[in-house]
């Protein structure tokens, strides 16, 4: 594949990836710090290049339901927003999960709660991985740590979404959304033709030919026995994801006595903290979960038998640390270090926390 070098913001990379990955429709509503996604799309006019539809909706409630409509009709559709907007979308998210609709939702997280701040945060981990809307459901959650991953994960999202008929979330943050880095982009993937959609998504509502029964997209089943079966089917799908779709990156883990566990921006900061730590002779590594659901539970369990302690570094009051504790089951010391409300920890702070809470503590 021909690779072209660009310099782009993370948010712009999402938009560029949408166009190049054959996305059919983007529906969104402006909110800082992710507004560049729709701005970029509107400037690029993909409807002239690829036929992709781009629409500014009247609210996040509306944009997520536009995604529901498009996804139910078998199209590759997406939206993006930031924390308060994603909260407003939670109704739509649970309907999408219930109706098993493949789609992509990007959350460029900012600090909360409430209107909070517009600065980067990772405090939406629970919302993304433990529901957020009502009912038992899971999103497939990807956590990019670079502009390149913002781009690449859009392509990966379509794969997973249609393989499992499940909504996918890219859980990013204001820093990754706003930072500009080098980006290598590939060739355009053509949008699916109607014939391809009929084959890939035979369940979708694109208009009923005489040859088949009418397709229905709904999350409603009034018969509880049937609804339980549907729930069991969903759970089986999530277990399948846990078996097959876990992704993580190990950095300096081979000889590590201590581990940082961090995703997204925090993982970048932790990498810098590793350099500082190693200069001081501390053997520290990083386990970076790339998928937050499914979580690299097995890998962490394995590592917990080798290391003396783990520090979960998050821009939150301590959310992922609970999954780390569940995975390690007390085999090693696990603590959390975080800043919140839009504050970003420095590598020095992170290293200091490792020394204080894990090495000395």
């Amino acid at each position, binding site marked *: 594949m021909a690779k072209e070098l660009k*310099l782009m913001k993370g948010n712009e990379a999402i938009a560029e990836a949408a166009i190049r990955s054959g996305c059919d429709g983007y529906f969104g509503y402006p909110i800082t*710090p992710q507004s560049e996604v729709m701005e970029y799309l509107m400037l690029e006019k993909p409807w002239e290049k690829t036929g992709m539809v781009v629409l500014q909706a009247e609210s996040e409630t509306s944009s997520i339901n536009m995604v529901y409509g498009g996804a139910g009709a078998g199209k590759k559709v997406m939206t993006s927003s930031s924390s308060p907007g994603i909260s407003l979308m939670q109704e739509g998210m649970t309907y999408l999960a219930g109706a098993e609709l493949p789609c992509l939702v990007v959350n460029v997280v900012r600090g909360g709660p409430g209107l909070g701040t517009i600065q980067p945060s990772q405090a939406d981990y629970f919302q993304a991985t433990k529901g957020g809307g009502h009912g038992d459901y899971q999103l497939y959650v990807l956590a990019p740590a670079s502009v390149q991953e913002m781009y690449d994960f859009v392509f990966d999202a379509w794969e997973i979404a249609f393989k499992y008929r499940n909504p996918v979330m890219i859980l990013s943050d204001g820093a990754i959304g706003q930072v500009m*880095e080098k980006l290598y982009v590939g060739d355009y993937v053509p949008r699916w033709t109607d014939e391809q959609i009929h084959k890939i998504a035979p369940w979708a509502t694109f208009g009923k030919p005489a040859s088949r029964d009418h397709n229905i997209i709904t999350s409603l089943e009034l018969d509880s026995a049937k609804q339980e079966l549907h729930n069991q089917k969903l759970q089986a799908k999530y277990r399948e994801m846990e078996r097959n779709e876990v992704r993580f990156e190990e950095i300096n883990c081979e000889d590590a006595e201590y581990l940082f566990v961090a995703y997204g921006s925090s993982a970048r900061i932790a990498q810098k903290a590793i350099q500082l730590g190693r200069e001081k002779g501390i053997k520290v590594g990083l386990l970076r979960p790339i998928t937050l659901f499914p979580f690299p539970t097995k890998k962490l369990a394995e590592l917990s038998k080798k290391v003396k302690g783990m520090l979960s570094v998050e821009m939150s009051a301590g959310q992922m640390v609970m999954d780390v504790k569940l995975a390690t089951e007390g085999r090693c010391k696990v603590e959390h270090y975080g800043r919140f409300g839009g504050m970003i920890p420095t590598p020095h702070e992170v290293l200091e926390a490792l020394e204080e809470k894990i090495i000395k503590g």
Partner: protein
Amino acid sequence: MTEEIIIAGFGGQGVLSMGKILAYSGAMQDKEVSWMPSYGPEMRGGTANVSVIISDERISSPIISQFDTAIILNQQSLDKFEHSVKPGGVLLYDPNGITKPPTRKDINIYKVAATEKSAELGMAKVFNMIVLGAFLKVKPVVTEEYIEKGLLKSLPERHHKLIPDNLKAVETGKELVETVHTL
């Protein structure tokens, strides 16, 4: 080589675009680069700053709190970032509007009267390029030919006719920079 830079000033001084040109030029020269802006209400008339990293290696964190170089264009930014320059690092500032000049003795301090010069030339728009020139004189992290390539890549085509003026401004900045204090 890794150079971690903060550029800070008022919104509208071309802080973000100076950073962008620097980052593009670095990328053209096959370096790893990152450009991390402050964003939000600051963009609209208040203070603006951007961290730029240019490195021969993969960049770990694009979010940095200590800098090899601080390029400072107003008093608020000087107050905020003077103490974030790493010992032995560089502080470059435009004296225009500076009432409390930097006082640190453990860093190298330079000044460039870019506001004054750009007003004198009647070219307020290339102010930031004069500052960039001054920085490149002190720290030649990218070479001139790549600055031109960076400008070509970062500016929309309709602005390409402005590139010669911009390059001239870079030269002006190189000549204009003055040493205040060196180690």
